[in-house]
Each structure stands twice: as structure tokens, then as C-alpha cells.
């Protein structure tokens, strides 16, 4: 055990944790928007919109995240039309490519979680709203969405933790996140166990915090 290396790599890894957290929070925000959007499409009666949303989630859940990042980072640059458009400002940055890939990926899983939450809402709640003469829109925003969010909290908590682990793939497109820096230190010092303990400890600490935060929310919003 090389305690000195562990101590000296800790601040570097902590610094890289900031990158990981930034990636995680941005992709979760965009992912939630995508997820809600596609969940609503999924519940739509229009067959075309419904199928479109189904294929979106099927494709993103059926392929590895690594493939998705590589298609967006290496693949999209090949299209002339994109290279000359304003989108290139975003797509040439590995940082934004990673965020786009993560958001689309977590969006697919989130849409499934929200969809099943919407589908399991007790019909009585909606009927109660109807019989009170509340409009469809208000029933959706004030009754269905809050209940669906509460229902999907445990599954969404798992998704956040999966996404935290997913951000490690950003290191494959040259980003120096927690895993990227850990790999760099391992490959320069050849002390994998020490670095694994420190980096793994930081990841476990974050999972622990997320896990407990979701538990707290579940208790707070239980009915």
C-alpha cells in the first residue's frame, strides 16, 4: 500500500469529481426534459407519435452507451452539412457530445419510468378530478404529474446512480472526469489498487448521498 500516492492523488481526483458532477447534473436536467416529453408522446393515442417514442427508447436502451457516445462524437463530425452549420460549435466539443449522449440515454430510461408511473396512477384520482369539473389540463399538471413523480422516485433514484456510473464513459472521449484522471494516474504510476480505492471511495460516497437523498424525498412525499 502506497499511502503517499493515495494522499497525493486525492486532491487531483476530487478536482476531477467536479467535472463528473457537472456532466451528471446537466445530463440529468436535459434527460428529465427528454424523458417527460417522450413519456407524454408514449401515452398519446396517435400511433405514429407513439411508435416514434417507443423506437427512441428501444434503440437507446438496447445499445451500449459507449456506442452512442462514439456515434455522436466521432460519427456526426463526418456529415458535411453539420460541420458547416452552427451546430458544429457544440458538436466539436467532446464535453457537449458527452452531455448530448448521456441526456438522450437517460432520457430513454426516464421516459420508460415515467410512462409506467403514469399508467399505474389510480383511475379514481382522474375520475375524481373529472367529476369535480376540473379541466383536463389542470388534472394533468396538478394531479397526474405530482403522483407520477412520487411513484417514479425509487426507480429514478436507481437511474441517477446508473447515470453517475455512466459519466465515467466521458473519459473515452478525452474528457478528464473522475475515471479519466484515475486511469491517467494508474497508467503513470502502475499502482491500480491504491487509485481504485480512492476513486472508488469517492464514487461510493456520491452513490451513498444520492441514495439517501432519494429515500428522504420518498418519505417526504409519501401519501
Amino acid at each position: 500500500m502506497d499511502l503517499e500516492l493515495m494522499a497525493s492523488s486525492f486532491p487531483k481526483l476530487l478536482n476531477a469529481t467536479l467535472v463528473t458532477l457537472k456532466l451528471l447534473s446537466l445530463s440529468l436536467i436535459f434527460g428529465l426534459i427528454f424523458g417527460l416529453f417522450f413519456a407524454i408522446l408514449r401515452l398519446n393515442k396517435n400511433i405514429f407519435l407513439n411508435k416514434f417514442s417507443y423506437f427512441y427508447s428501444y434503440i437507446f436502451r438496447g445499445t451500449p452507451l459507449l456506442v452512442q457516445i462514439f456515434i455522436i462524437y466521432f460519427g456526426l463530425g463526418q456529415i458535411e452539412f453539420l460541420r458547416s452549420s452552427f451546430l458544429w460549435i457544440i458538436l466539436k466539443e467532446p464535453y457537449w457530445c458527452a452531455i448530448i449522449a448521456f441526456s438522450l440515454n437517460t432520457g430513454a430510461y426516464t421516459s420508460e419510468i415515467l410512462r409506467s408511473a403514469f399508467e399505474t396512477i389510480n383511475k379514481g384520482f382522474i375520475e375524481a378530478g373529472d367529476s369535480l369539473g376540473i379541466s383536463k389540463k389542470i388534472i394533468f399538471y396538478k394531479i397526474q404529474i405530482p403522483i407520477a413523480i412520487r411513484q417514479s422516485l425509487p426507480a429514478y433514484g436507481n437511474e441517477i446512480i446508473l447515470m453517475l456510473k455512466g459519466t465515467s464513459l466521458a473519459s473515452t472521449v478525452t474528457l478528464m472526469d473522475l475515471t479519466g484522471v484515475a486511469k491517467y494516474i494508474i497508467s503513470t504510476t502502475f499502482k491500480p489498487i491504491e487509485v481504485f480505492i480512492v476513486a472508488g471511495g469517492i464514487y461510493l460516497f456520491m452513490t451513498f448521498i444520492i441514495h439517501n437523498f432519494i429515500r428522504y424525498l420518498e418519505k417526504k412525499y409519501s401519501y
Partner: protein
Amino acid sequence: MDLLAFGNTGWGDELFLATLMTIAVSITAMIIGFCFALIFTPLKLSKNKFLNFIGNSYTTIIRGVPELLVIYLLFFGGSGAVMYVASIFGYNKYIEINAFITGSFAIGIISGAYSTEVFRGAIQSIDKGQFEASKVLGLKKPVHFFKVIMPQMLRLAVPNLSNVWQITLKDTSLISVTGLVEIMRQSYIAAGSTRDPLFFYSFAAVLYLLLTFLSMKLINKLEIKYRRGY
């Protein structure tokens, strides 16, 4: 389509072999995972606090740390660990471990943590009466486990194990970082030499979709078999 031709002109045969490699790694990893699950499920269910702690740490650590980090640990630390063990037995030469073994082992450890959770959940949801009944009947331990607990456990575990299989299959893409030539690595090589990454990575995505789709079809058949009533 020329790019996918078989033979020396295209990448068809290379990608086909790479797909077989992905399947081979996934199956090996799944089997290694089952071995880990067989060791750690009893530990997690044990009443002994120390054994319980070991079982819980395994699943918590592996499920809380990114797969890529576990792969790097084994990739950079694996041959060192094996050489250390070998040196105890008096063998001091350099040992290089095959990328296939490192890769399947790394993915196996990860898939084992998920399988352990699945088996634990399945055993815990078996009716207590079944355990008591087989005790009252005086069944021997192996008979109790293989004839009473195992059939009921499998029935409950198969749907969740299919999720573990999907996760394992997708995780194999990560061992491309160690240089093992599976779908992802082969696409990387092909994309590099043809300068056509969009085509090859999209094709890789199609291959993975095909694998997940076909395996779901197979697993659904298994599920029907195990969903029979008692």
C-alpha cells in the same frame, strides 16, 4: 455495402468474428457471475454478521463504482496479482494474462453482483413454509436445496436474470478499452482505417440491437417454461 464485404476487401468477416467474440465474452462473464453469485448469495443471507458484511460489501462496491474503473483495476492490476500469487509458489517469470480472460473476469465480477441481488431477492420471496416443511420432513441439505428451493427460486429469478443478461451484454462493449477485439474494438479499427466512423459505429449499434433483440426472444421462451404453475 462494399465496406461490409467478406474477405480482404471489406470488414464483414472481421465484424462477424467480433460479434461472436462479444457473445463468447458475455456468456463467459455470465457464467463467472453465477459462480460469484453462488458464493455471495449465501453470505448475504447468512445470520453471521461478519459473513453478511462481506456479502454486502461486494454488491455495494461493485454496483456503486463505474464498470470502467473495475475494468481498469483488473486490466492494470490483474497480471500483477497473478504474478504475486505465482511468486508464492516459487514462479518468478513475467505472466501476461489474456485479454479475453481479464475482460470476462471483469464483466463477470460486475454481472455477479447483479445476479447475487436477483438470487437473494428470489430466495427471500419464497414462502417460509417451504423451508419449514422440508425441515420437518427431514430432507438432507442438498436435497432441500436442489429439489425444494432451487426450482422455486429459478422461477422467480428468470425474469430478473434476463435484465442482468442485457446489462452484461452491453457492458462487454467497455472491455474494448483493453484491446480485446469485440464489436466495439473492431468498429474502432475499421472506422480508423476507412475514415468512416459514422457508418461503422452505427453498424455496431445495429449489431448490439440485434443481439439484445434475439436474446430477448430466446429468454421469453425460457420464461414461459418457468412460469408454469406449481
